[in-house]
């Protein structure tokens, strides 16, 4: 609670900012990526000074008896736009679920501000860390404004059901996502792109310094994908929020992420700035796809161009021939 009050104080100072969308992270007022600000605002303990707010150590993640990942450790850099990529079933969504306490790890722990996330009060976590799940259900006959307003739930109580702050933040969240004019419309009537914006508006209204998004662009056409990613980038840049997203499109990931985590088979293969880690070798190692990596003509970020079908075929034939020549070596590489 204390951290929120402190943050709201700092918010008042920048109330005249042109694009103030009601962010409560203290550090959003300065654009430098200093960790000090964040550890001040966490107020809980000194041990967080050199530690990022969201970390995971030695996670073993499993559904029933199927183990998805073992001994997985990851650190989400504060104020980053972290994107997790990897082939289907590599455990990236599972990792996101564990980070957002949806999935209890069988071993290891997820730490939020230095404390085991599962041991913290649910509403307290929900004021710090938000999640946009892959699938949500809009209740029958709910209006856009009402749905977005539900994002305020962790800030409310029996005697504090709808404060003026709630109202203001809901309106700002709707304005930031461009759904303000849709307030009285029913969610079922909206197009897929509009609906996704409404869900993002709800997640924004939750006012969490950390926001996790599970495949926010799935099922959207290219224009709406870019819209949603622009919105994420804006949340990250202007409000200083830490974003973690699972994305399928490697080129989108390379363009928007400030920190990229590449996973395969439940393990982190590489992580770092996209410019540093996205190479043809990495893409082949993670996705098993031969490709070229060139500079994106628009942004200069890495752009992955899959190799043409013929050249991939030729390469496979060459590999096979090589394997026939050196069976021992082939066995070694394939294992």
């Amino acid at each position, binding site marked *: 609670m204390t951290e929120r009050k402190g943050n709201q104080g700092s918010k008042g100072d920048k109330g005249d900012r042109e694009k103030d969308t009601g962010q409560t992270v203290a550090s959003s007022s300065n654009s430098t990526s200093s960790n000090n600000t964040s550890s001040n605002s966490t107020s809980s303990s000194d041990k967080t000074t050199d530690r990022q707010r969201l970390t995971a150590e030695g996670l073993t993640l499993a559904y029933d008896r199927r183990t998805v990942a073992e001994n997985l450790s990851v650190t989400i850099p504060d104020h980053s736009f972290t994107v997790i990529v990897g082939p289907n079933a590599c455990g990236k969504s599972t990792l996101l679920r564990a980070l957002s306490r949806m999935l209890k790890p069988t071993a290891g722990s997820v730490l939020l501000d230095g404390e085991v996330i599962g041991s913290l009060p*649910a509403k307290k976590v*929900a004021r710090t860390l938000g999640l*946009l799940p892959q699938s949500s259900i809009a209740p029958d006959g709910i209006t856009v404004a009402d749905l977005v307003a539900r*994002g305020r739930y962790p800030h409310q109580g029996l005697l504090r059901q709808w404060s003026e702050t709630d109202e203001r933040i809901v309106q700002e969240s709707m304005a930031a996502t461009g759904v303000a004019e849709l307030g009285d419309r029913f969610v079922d009537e909206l197009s897929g792109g509009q609906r996704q914006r409404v869900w993002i508006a709800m997640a924004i209204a939750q006012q969490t310094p950390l926001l996790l998004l599970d495949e926010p662009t799935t099922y959207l056409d290219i224009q709406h994908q870019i819209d949603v990613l622009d919105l994420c980038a804006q949340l990250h840049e202007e409000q200083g929020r830490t974003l973690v997203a699972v994305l399928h499109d490697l080129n989108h990931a390379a363009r928007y992420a400030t920190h990229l985590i590449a996973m395969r088979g439940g393990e982190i293969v590489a992580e770092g700035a996209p410019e540093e880690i996205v190479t043809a070798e990495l893409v082949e190692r993670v996705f098993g796809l031969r490709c070229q990596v060139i500079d994106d003509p628009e942004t200069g970020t890495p752009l992955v161009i899959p190799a043409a079908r013929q050249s991939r075929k030729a390469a496979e034939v060459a590999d096979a021939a090589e394997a026939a020549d050196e069976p021992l070596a082939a066995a070694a590489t394939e294992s």
Partner: protein
Amino acid sequence: MNASKRTTSKASGVTLRTGGLSLRLDVRGAVVGLLLLAVALAMSVVLIGTGDFPMAPADVLNTLAGNGTMAQDFIVHDLRLPRVLVGLLVGAALGLAGAVFQSISRNPLGSPDVIGFGQGSAAGALTVIVLFQGNPTEVAAGAICGGLLTGVGVYALAWRRGIHGYRLVLVGIGATAMLAAVNGYLLTKADLPDATRAVVWLTGSLNGRDWSQVWPLACVCAVLLPVVLGQARALRMLEMGDDSAYALGVRVERTRLVLMFAGVLLTASATAAAGPVSFVALVAPQLARRLTRSAGPNLLPAAWMGAALLVTADWSAQRAFGADQLPVGALTAMLGGGYLLWLLVTERKAGRI
């Protein structure tokens, strides 16, 4: 002084704020709720005046206030008032339980009578009647045990890393079929007098209810209504899916367990008092929600709607067929069956089945 009123959008209603306090009121929902409650109470007065010894509503009110003649006093307080109170409480309990389960299963079909709790209570009661020839109190206890056991069984079978709407409904429908078979078997085993008693009980009736049915049910409702209402806000969040609710800080499994337990107990207690009155739990929440036009479980309107429905059904049955001729359960089943058919057709059209 700094209290302020404001409407935010057409569906949200009025907010009252004083200092750090802010309360939100869905005006339409509240008005609908109060109207339904008024209808239920008015119908109760009419129902008390109905029978072989008719009384005008004014006389009924007079007698209730303690100013009636000896005869009126006896008829109202000893004969008809308990019956009407059982009707009101059973209706409210079923309406509330229906709203809870339909909200948890996110499915209008997920009401306790469709997913086996009614049949479970019936199986418990029949076991006591047929195998042990128990007295009415024992039958009621049997009904509650049967309902709770069915609740535990359905929950355990439907649980797979959490409870999911359709799974709950499907497991529940399976349980209903199996329990109906058990009930049929128990009936064939019964002697004629036991079988007669069992069949009357199975239809769901308010005939001959007295204060010994009123008090236990009133106590259960008095305890569980606040419990359920206390979880109402969390239940609204649950409607958006488990992940969204988790993300908003709702302790999903705990909330669901508390609410399901309360719903099962409400259903079982209502069934213990009046037999398995079918379809009230299925219909009341849906009708209430069409009147309030607001998203969410609409808990209180559903409870009042259930009470109004049951009392009205009892009154219609008495008017049309004479006192004690047609058990109220038969009437609700006829009307509710039509509704279920309509529901299945529209659900199918909407592609949800």
